């Protein structure tokens, strides 16, 4: 195995070295085809409680992006009149991933297994592939794509059209790289100026039959598995009437299948009204967060084994939203942003001991309605003693989520613990419990700063801070990008998770859930080399 590893690492660096000698920024094939992309070698070292260190990722990503301009200025292939179609392009984005850490860890301590269908080891797919057609005043994008609405950074309110792949590095990557593109049609009708509105357009999105939920790893052998607040173990036991039983899960995936009746769609109107850029949005889809219905009525106990039936469901959801931004040039010299939504069909867990009026189906599951309000400010700011020639881009936002149908029996993040019988832990037995009562109102405040230094601004530090004021859980990231050349980018990132007080994990998967005092500390240092072309 080490030979294989050495070969892969060596090959990557050889390719980097060879390619960095003389490569064009964008490779043109003829007049109409362009090819670009990147090769990224990403190494992450986890430092639990800063007492030890373990390599958790050695992810090599090759992404190829091509664009074919087959129709320009009303001429198809440079020969035929294309009628009302003024421009058309075909875009293909393919990505291949190989994470060698599974080979390394397998060979060293077996802690990170690749026996889970080699998930996380290889990935190769067409990430995006779409046709752009411009038929003024219409424009259409048809194919597998990402569509982003809203004004919020790093949290989701209106940005719900594409699910996220949180399985390999949670949400700590550019969302462009972790959004799961869907097959859909996006059409925009440009209206322009009318009545009191300027720059207005109407946009519609239709996803005929391509629902996918957010992707989360739950296998503890995955480095970024979401294992709750307790032990990084899979529950294999359950207490039934005070007796410890072996647990077998019969998980039934009831998420929407690829059928037209499971289509999703939405529309928005965006315009400027008196210097305020705003949009009205509506999306009818499915919750990308998967809910779990516990079907005790179908569960059974045979001998010492309890088979529990769990149904995975993604409820239908309506999302109505309003966004606005305003560039205040005179007094604050800031861009002010706002986003607010009302959503239905939010899956929530209910405590097993909830009364029947709260959980009449006794399935520990409900759907809730929720509102979000996000307020943000962006400001290019001079901090001359830190950087005399370039401003810092400062951005801060407050994100407030409110459950309309709140119940004190709603539960948040579960935890896995050692099974204890008569005060003694039972070896190899773990059970899941959920004592995390969620709050009716949830808050998170974020702040980020970035600037650039050096000739041509090749050194780019950045800082991210997010805190949940209720749980006092927080996340910090210090990053530094250095462009060694136009083709080679070196990236360093240090992430910390911490809390000021208490043990509340909070709802945002930040703070002490992966912090210093829990058993699942995930402070980490990332070093990446990107070759781009």
């Amino acid at each position, binding site marked *: 195995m080490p030979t294989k590893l050495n070969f892969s690492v060596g090959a990557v660096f050889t390719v980097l070295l060879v390619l960095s000698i003389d490569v064009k*920024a*964008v490779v*043109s094939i003829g*007049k109409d085809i362009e090819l*670009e*992309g*990147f090769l990224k070698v990403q190494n992450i070292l986890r430092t639990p409680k800063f007492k030890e260190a373990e390599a958790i990722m050695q992810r090599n990503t090759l992404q190829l992006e091509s*664009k074919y301009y087959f129709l320009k200025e009303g001429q198809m292939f440079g020969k035929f009149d294309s009628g009302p179609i003024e421009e058309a392009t075909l*875009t293909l*984005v393919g990505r291949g991933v190989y994470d060698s850490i599974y080979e390394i860890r397998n060979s060293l301590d077996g802690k990170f297994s690749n026996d889970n269908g080699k998930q996380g080891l290889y990935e190769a797919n067409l990430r*995006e592939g779409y046709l*752009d057609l*411009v038929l*003024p*005043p219409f*424009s259409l*994008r048809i194919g597998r794509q*990402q*569509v*982003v*609405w809203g004004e919020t*950074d790093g949290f989701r309110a209106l940005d719900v059209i594409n699910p996220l792949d949180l399985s390999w590095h949670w949400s700590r990557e550019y*969302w*462009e790289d972790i959004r799961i593109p869907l097959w859909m049609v996006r059409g*925009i009708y*440009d209206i*322009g*100026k009318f009545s009191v509105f300027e*720059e*207005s*357009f109407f*946009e519609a999105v239709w996803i005929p039959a391509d629902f996918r939920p957010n992707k989360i790893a739950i296998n503890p052998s995955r480095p970024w598995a979401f294992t709750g607040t307790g032990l990084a173990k899979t529950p294999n036991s359950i207490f039934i009437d005070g007796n410890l039983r072996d647990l077998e899960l019969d998980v039934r995936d009831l998420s929407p299948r690829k059928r037209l009746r499971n289509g999703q769609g939405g529309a928005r109107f965006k315009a*400027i009204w008196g*210097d305020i*850029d705003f949009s009205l949005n509506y999306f009818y889809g499915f919750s990308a967060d998967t809910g779990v219905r516990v079907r005790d009525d179908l569960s059974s106990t045979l001998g010492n084994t309890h088979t529990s039936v769990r149904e995975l469901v993604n409820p239908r959801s309506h999302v109505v939203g309003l966004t606005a*931004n*305003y*560039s205040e*040039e*005179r007094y604050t*010299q*800031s*861009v002010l*942003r706002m986003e607010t939504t009302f959503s239905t069909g939010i899956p929530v867990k209910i405590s097993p001991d909830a009364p029947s009026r709260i959980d009449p189906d006794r399935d520990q599951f409900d759907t809730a309605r929720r509102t979000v309000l996000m307020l943000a400010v*962006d400001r*290019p700011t*001079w901090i001359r003693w830190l950087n005399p*020639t*370039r*401003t810092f881009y400062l951005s801060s936002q407050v994100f407030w989520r409110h459950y309309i149908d709140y119940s004190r029996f709603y539960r948040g993040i579960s935890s896995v613990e050692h099974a204890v019988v008569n005060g003694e832990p039972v070896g190899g037995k773990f059970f899941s419990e959920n004592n995390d009562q969620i709050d009716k109102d949830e808050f998170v405040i974020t702040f980020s700063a970035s600037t*650039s230094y050096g*000739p*041509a*601004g*090749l050194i780019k530090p950045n800082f991210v801070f997010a805190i949940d004021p209720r749980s006092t859980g927080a996340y910090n990231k210090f990053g530094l990008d250095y*462009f060694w050349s*136009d*083709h080679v*980018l070196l990236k360093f990132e240090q992430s910390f998770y911490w809390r000021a007080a208490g043990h509340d994990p909070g709802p945002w998967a930040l703070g002490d859930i992966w912090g210093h005092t829990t058993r699942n500390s995930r402070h980490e240092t990332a070093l990446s080399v990107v070759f*781009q072309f």
Partner: protein
Amino acid sequence: MEKSSHRASAGTGLKVFFTIVCFSLSIKGFSADGQSYKEFIEWIEKKPPEIEVSNQGTLLTIDDKDDILNALIPSPAWEYYIFADMEMTVVPKGYYPSPPSWGRGSQEGILDENGVLVGFTGGGFPFPKVVENDPLAGQKVVWNMLWRPGQHDFDMPMTTWLRSENGKLDRKMEFTGVSSTYARGEKCLVEGYEEVKSKRIMEFRSPRDMAGAKDMSISYVDHYRENSGWVYMPSQRKPRRTLASERTSELMGMDLIREDMNGFSGKIYENDWDYLGKRKVLATMNVKDNPEAGGPHLWVPHKTRWEVRDAHVVLINPKDSDHPYMARIVLIDSETYWTLWMFGFDRKDEMLLRMNQHYLKYSESYALETPQQAPFVEQDYSKNVGSFVFLHLGESDINAKKPHGTVTHCYTRKREFSSARARQFYSLRNMVSGRR
């Protein structure tokens, strides 16, 4: 092409002595290389010699430093533009008429108490005649520059090289700007958009970390109104509103601030103004092609065509004490109102902080000589002929304090949008998606 005939200047010896004294004493505001504000003011006040220029062009080299180059190249630029193997071909001053319709139906401009042009909607120079003793001459020259013909209405693929000393290439960027004039005097390009002066969309092509990033900017006839702007970043896949009133931070790692574009792109009312008269100066006025980069650091045009032009010299003093410049001096061609040179002096020591110099080509010259194509797209330059405007072929931007230089080549094709196409292209709709 003829080699220049040297005619010794009477003050050469004195100048050398003065320079040595300044260097030795290290007096604040003076330097050995003419980069202090005071030295530049002295240079402006000196009357340069008349030089003989042949019709075929007169070649200037380092040998012409004392007699001609020092007198006709602004003193802060000597260090970069006068070098050992330099070659400048100086041709007779050309005649470059404006478009035949220019000024027809355009009204004379009126300045308010802040020197701000009000009620003017383009189609001609707001101040066709600028009188030197006019106390508002500085503002009027700059207003003419801001409303000159050819300011917009083009497709402009660009390549930019950002270099440290000794020509070390730090970054190369490729991008394309497309812009249109909306305010055209009696009529507006798009009916109903009379408040808009111009719109511009710029999109990056490379390097890959910037590829697909694009911004749209709308400038307004009302100078008091800040531009509206949005930027689309592929990593975010959505447009983001931008702030226009911060104009003094360096842009994209380049050696210029937003206010330096075109020599001056700030707000008239944020500055004090002085008109310093006219001055003859060498300018890359109608170059044959995008000039090759020369000089010890590859920051300046080399082996290209120059003219001796009469330039308005305008002194601009920012009112804001936090502004990086204590003074900005802009040299603007007195006939065409294109910016030839700009120098910004550091508030801390009154020495040169940043400068830029522009390479221009007259549209009718495209009939005789075609400049190179952009490395990444081929355009039909024949449409440029008949426009009777200057096209921007690039510029040198230098930060003297780092020191660092940015050289940009523009491959400009005139483009007139139809009203319908402009309405579609310059729209927020175009900013919700991008190259990826």
